[in-house]
C-alpha cells in the first residue's frame, strides 16, 4: 500500500510555481467558478474533485488560459520571474502553452491531430519551438513513443488506427515532449476501460515522478485522485469547499459535502 502513495516532491523549491488569487468566471448570471485561490509548488500534483457541474473544467480552462476569467490572478513562475498569465498578451501565453505548459484533454480527439501520424503529433510542439532537424525530431518522437509504451513501428500510423488507451498515451507524449513544468489534465482517464485506466495511471505516475512535473488534474474519480494527487481541492457550485492533503481529505473529510462525496464513491 505504501508504494501506492504519490511521491513527495523531490526537493523544496524557493517558491510556488503557480499562485492563484481570487479567480472567478461567470457564464452570464451562472457561476462557473468563484473566488478560487491556491498555491502549487514545483513537482506537486493537485487534484480537483467535485460533482458534475461544480466548476472543475471551468477552473482548469481559466488556469490554462483557454478561458478568460472575470476576476483574479494566475501568477506563474516563468523562466523570467513571476508573471500574471491572465494579463499576458496572447502570443506570450500561447508560447507558454507550447513550452512550459501542457494540456491533456479528456477526449484524445481534442488533443491530437487525427490526420497526422503519431510521429508528427509528437513532433509538432518541437517544431513549434523551432526544431528543424528531421532526424532529431524523429528520434525524439521515437523515444517518446517508447516512454508511453507505444511500439516504435507505429510511428507513421495515424491515431485513428490506435485504441482509446493508445490515443491517450500518444496525447500525453505529444504534450510532454518539450519538457513542460506544469501540466493541466481534465479527466485524462475518463472514458477508458478500467484495466486501460490502470495502465495509464501507472504510466502517468512514473512520468510525473521522473520529470518532476507539477500537475493540476481534474477528475470525478476519487481513486484516481488518491493515486496521483498530493493535495485535493473539493469544489461545489463553483467554489472550493475543502482543500488539504489527499489522505486527510479522503480519510477525514471535514465538509459535509465532501463526506457525502467520499462515502458515495466508496460505496460504488
Amino acid at each position, binding site marked *: 500500500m505504501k508504494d501506492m502513495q504519490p511521491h513527495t516532491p523531490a526537493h523544496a523549491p524557493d517558491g510556488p510555481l503557480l499562485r492563484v488569487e481570487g479567480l472567478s468566471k461567470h457564464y452570464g448570471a451562472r457561476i462557473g467558478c468563484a473566488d478560487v485561490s491556491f498555491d502549487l509548488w514545483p513537482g506537486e500534483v493537485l487534484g480537483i474533485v467535485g460533482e458534475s457541474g461544480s466548476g472543475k473544467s471551468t477552473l482548469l480552462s481559466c488556469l490554462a488560459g483557454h478561458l478568460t476569467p472575470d476576476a483574479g490572478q494566475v501568477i506563474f513562475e516563468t523562466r523570467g520571474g513571476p508573471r500574471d498569465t491572465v494579463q499576458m498578451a496572447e*502570443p506570450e501565453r500561447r508560447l507558454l502553452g*507550447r513550452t512550459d505548459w501542457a494540456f491533456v484533454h479528456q477526449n484524445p480527439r481534442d488533443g491530437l491531430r487525427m*490526420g497526422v501520424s503519431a*510521429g508528427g503529433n509528437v513532433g*509538432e510542439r518541437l*517544431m*513549434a519551438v523551432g526544431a528543424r532537424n*528531421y532526424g532529431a525530431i524523429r528520434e525524439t518522437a521515437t523515444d517518446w513513443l517508447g516512454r508511453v509504451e507505444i511500439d516504435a513501428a507505429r510511428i507513421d500510423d495515424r491515431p485513428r488506427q490506435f485504441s482509446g488507451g493508445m490515443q491517450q498515451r500518444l496525447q500525453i507524449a505529444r504534450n510532454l515532449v518539450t519538457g513542460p513544468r506544469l501540466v493541466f489534465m481534465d479527466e485524462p482517464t475518463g472514458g477508458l476501460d478500467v484495466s486501460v485506466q490502470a495502465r495509464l495511471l501507472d504510466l502517468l505516475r512514473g512520468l510525473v515522478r521522473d520529470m518532476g512535473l507539477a500537475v493540476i488534474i481534474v477528475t470525478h474519480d476519487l481513486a484516481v485522485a488518491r493515486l496521483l494527487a498530493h493535495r485535493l481541492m473539493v469544489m461545489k457550485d463553483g467554489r472550493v469547499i475543502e482543500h488539504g492533503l489527499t489522505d486527510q481529505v479522503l480519510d477525514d473529510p471535514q465538509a459535509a459535502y465532501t463526506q457525502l462525496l467520499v462515502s458515495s464513491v466508496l460505496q460504488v
Partner: protein
Amino acid sequence: MNAPHHDPDYNFAYLDEQTKRMIRRAILKGIAVPGYQVPFASREMPMPYGWGTGGVQVTAACLVPEDRLKVIDQGADDTTNAVSIRRFFQRTAGVAATEKTTEASVIQTRHRIPETPLTEGQILVYQVPIPEPLRFLEPRESETRRMHALADYGLMHVKLYEDIARHGAIATAYAYPVEVEGRYVMDPSPIPKFDNPKLGDNPAIQLFGAGREQRIYALPPYTAVRSLDFEDYPFDPSKADHDCDLCGASGSYLDEVITDDQGSRMFVCSDTDYCETRRDAGHRGRFSPPEVQA
C-alpha cells in the same frame, strides 16, 4: 474582339472605379505587410472561379491604358485560359498585348514564373486557388488566422515532416510554402517549387489574387523569401536532368510532351516565350526540327 480602344460598354478594365479602389487598397496593404493575406470583397467576374477571377480582379485594378499585358497559363501564352483573359482585357481595357516577357508591364500568370528575369517596374499577378498554406492541416479559418497573427507555424513543418515520413523526401512539388521576410508563411500559388527561388529578391512587384477565397497578398520588390525545409532535408528546387529538346536550355522548367502514338517523348520549355526567344537567337535542342534550323 481585338479593338484597339476599350469597348465603351464597359468601364475601363471592366470593374467600376469604386471596386478598383477597394482592390487597390487591399493591394497596398498587402505590399505594406509582405505575405499577409488581406481580405477583400471579391466581385463576380464574367468567367468561372477556376479561371483566375482573383488574378483578373487584381490585374484590372492595376492596369492603366499605357500597359502592355502578357497572360500565361502554365508558362504558355496560347492556352484557352490565357487567350480568353488576354482578350478580355484587350476588349475591356483596350491595352496592348504581348507574349514577350521583356516587353510586358503587367503579366498575369497561372502556375509559373517566367524564366526571363523580371525587372523593376513590372508587375506579376498570380491566380491563386487556395491562399491558405495551413489549410491542409487546419480547416478552421479562425485558427489559421490566429496562427498567422502569432507566427505560430509549427504546423507548417508538420506537413513537411509528414511528407518525409511518408515519401522519404519532401514530396511537395507545387505550392511549396515559403516564409516571407522572416514573418508570414505564404502559399506561392501552385507554381512548381522549381520557381520558388525566383520569388525572393525579385525586382518586380508580385501580387497574388484569390477570387473564391477573397484574399490578396503581395511581395514587394526585393523581398526576402525562404522556402521552408529541415536542416537535414534542405529545400531542393529539383532541376530536370534534361535540356530543352527545342532550344537546348539547361536551366529552365520543362514539360514532357508525347510526340507520337509509339510513346516517343520530348522535353520542352514550359515557358513558350523563353523557348521561342532562344530559338530565334539561334539556340537549338536535340530535336530541333529542320525548319527551325533554317
